[in-house]
């Protein structure tokens, strides 16, 4: 059979006692691509990854790897490379022995093993630390060793659980690019778990947004970002303004709202156009965050709705708290969501 997917979840569930951590998810991990599982804490990302790796047996459904049923196979029978959040390096072994561990188990001969260990360490730029112990390395270096160790066995899939969350901000940005580079150099199918939407947007070929053990939306960042499927995904991706309409709601990003003094003519007629008042201003250098209270014609409640506009400081009109303003957005920036 032709193999187009690296792995597949078919109605996979994980129930702990009476709590459903993963609820019958269907998911295809494409071959040679980077897939991210994105969602807030507790939504079942790690649980899904551990089921794929064989550390947790699904309580329902099937897991296929390269088309074969691996639902009940233990981790050592799966040939997957896993990078743990705590890195989980073997503290009593040198860096080289850590990376060579999986190769030794595969009975790769000594000289071949040394060569492949060196290659894996060169790929992450750490060949010079082959003789060190893990505890002599920085967090970022340990992370690279963990990646080299997982990649050295030439796994069918590379799995990473929040690989960047323990690194400082600067290193995190650097490692995003590094993991992408390793993925494209090796052509590996990668699954990366994260709760950071920027990370998912920047790194993914395919992103899978989860909530409460269910998949909310999946697709390329280019598909998902401009067209969130529901309010949860929209909020998670930074859409902050939700305006009720007759039978649904529309959402728009803060940077796509225009705010002008009331008397100026409305910029658009067929887009969003609301009257409102400035309730707060926060100057942030490059931009100004304007918090607004708007009258909502479609709303059932008499209270004004809260909107946030993110204006470029250089072009923003001169606003004061309490100003009566016109709030507009062009139709291309509006996303209609189910109510």
């Amino acid at each position: 059979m032709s193999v187009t997917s690296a792995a597949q979840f078919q109605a996979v569930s994980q129930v702990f006692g009476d709590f459903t951590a993963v609820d019958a998810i269907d998911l295809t991990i494409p071959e040679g691509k980077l897939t991210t599982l994105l969602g807030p804490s507790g939504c079942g990302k790690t649980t899904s990854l551990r089921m794929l790796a064989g550390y947790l047996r699904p309580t329902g459904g099937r897991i296929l790897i390269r088309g074969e049923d691996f639902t009940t196979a233990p981790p050592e029978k799966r040939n997957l490379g896993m990078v743990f959040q705590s890195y989980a390096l073997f503290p009593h072994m040198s860096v080289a022995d850590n990376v060579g561990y999986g190769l030794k188990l595969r009975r790769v001969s000594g000289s071949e093993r040394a060569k492949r260990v060196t290659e894996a360490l060169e790929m992450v730029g750490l060949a010079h630390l082959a003789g060190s112990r893990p505890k002599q390395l920085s967090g970022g270096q340990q992370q690279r060793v963990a990646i080299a160790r997982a990649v050295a066995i030439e796994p069918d899939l590379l799995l990473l659980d929040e690989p960047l969350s323990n690194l400082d901000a600067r290193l995190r940005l650097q490692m995003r690019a590094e993991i992408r580079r390793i993925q494209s150099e090796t052509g590996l199918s990668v699954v990366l778990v994260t709760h950071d939407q920027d990370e998912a947007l920047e790194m993914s070929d395919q992103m899978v947004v989860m909530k409460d053990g269910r998949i909310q939306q999946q697709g390329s960042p280019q598909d998902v970002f401009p067209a969130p499927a529901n309010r949860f995904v929209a909020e998670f991706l930074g859409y902050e303004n939700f305006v009720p309409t007759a039978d649904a709601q529309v959402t728009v990003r803060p940077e796509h709202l225009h705010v002008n003094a009331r008397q100026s003519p409305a910029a658009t007629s067929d887009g969003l156009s609301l009257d409102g008042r400035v309730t707060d201003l926060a100057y942030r250098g490059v931009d100004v965050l304007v918090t607004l209270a708007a009258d909502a014609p479609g709303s059932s409640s008499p209270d004004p709705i809260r909107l946030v506009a993110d204006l470029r400081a250089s072009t923003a009109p001169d606003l004061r708290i309490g100003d009566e303003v016109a709030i507009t957005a062009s139709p291309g920036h509006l996303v209609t969501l189910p109510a």
Partner: protein
Amino acid sequence: MNTRRPVAASLAVLGYIVMIAPLFFVVITAFTAGSTVRFPPDGFSLRWFEAAVTYQPFMSALASSLQLAVFAAVASLALGVPVALAIHRGKIPGKGLLEGMFLSPLIVPELVVGLALYQQFMIGLGMNNLTTLAIGHTVLMFPYAVRVTGASLALIDPAVEDAARGLGASPMRTFFTITLPLLRPGIFSAALLAFVTSFNNVPLSLLLQSREFRTLPVTMLDYVQQNYDPIVASTSVLILAGTVLVAVVAERTVGFAKIFGGINR
């Protein structure tokens, strides 16, 4: 010393003095040239050391004690390590209860344990006293083995074992290449503790002694009840020296920080 906490520091010093002062008197009297235990001693000689190492009852009791302590240490670990693994890594319900149960020999008075063993094993089953003592000491050391190896097991990140599995190691292989090497300081400290505790044990050994098999502390206790010469002091000094030697070896090979880190956590 921490000079910013004078009260705590003084108490610590006082504690050391209270602990070490009696040892000091024993050590001094062991070097006496006279034939009674007296302080200050009558002159200086090594005659009581010579007497100690040539006194047959002490030396055969020493051999018995060492034998028993080694057996108790090995046997309690052989049982204790798997139990610690089951408690910390296994998926068994009621782990807390199980752990509490394995701690219980520490709570039951040793004399009660001894009496039970005496009645059931020696009288009831007709076992000889060596076997019964070996069982008794193993039972007494077992909780230490479970606790100490369990404490160092709890310090090992389970993800490390998961990582080995993911790289292709069977559970057995993971245990021998990852868990066991990481557990080595814990096992070493448990063995040391079990060995020393068994070697120094009096209540159980006293109850289960026989003419053929008697441990050193019991034999020494017997001896001081009838004689009052410095041979007991010199024997004690030799035991002390042996213990210090073991401690130095332990410090050199594993390190106290690791050993007692394992116990304290």
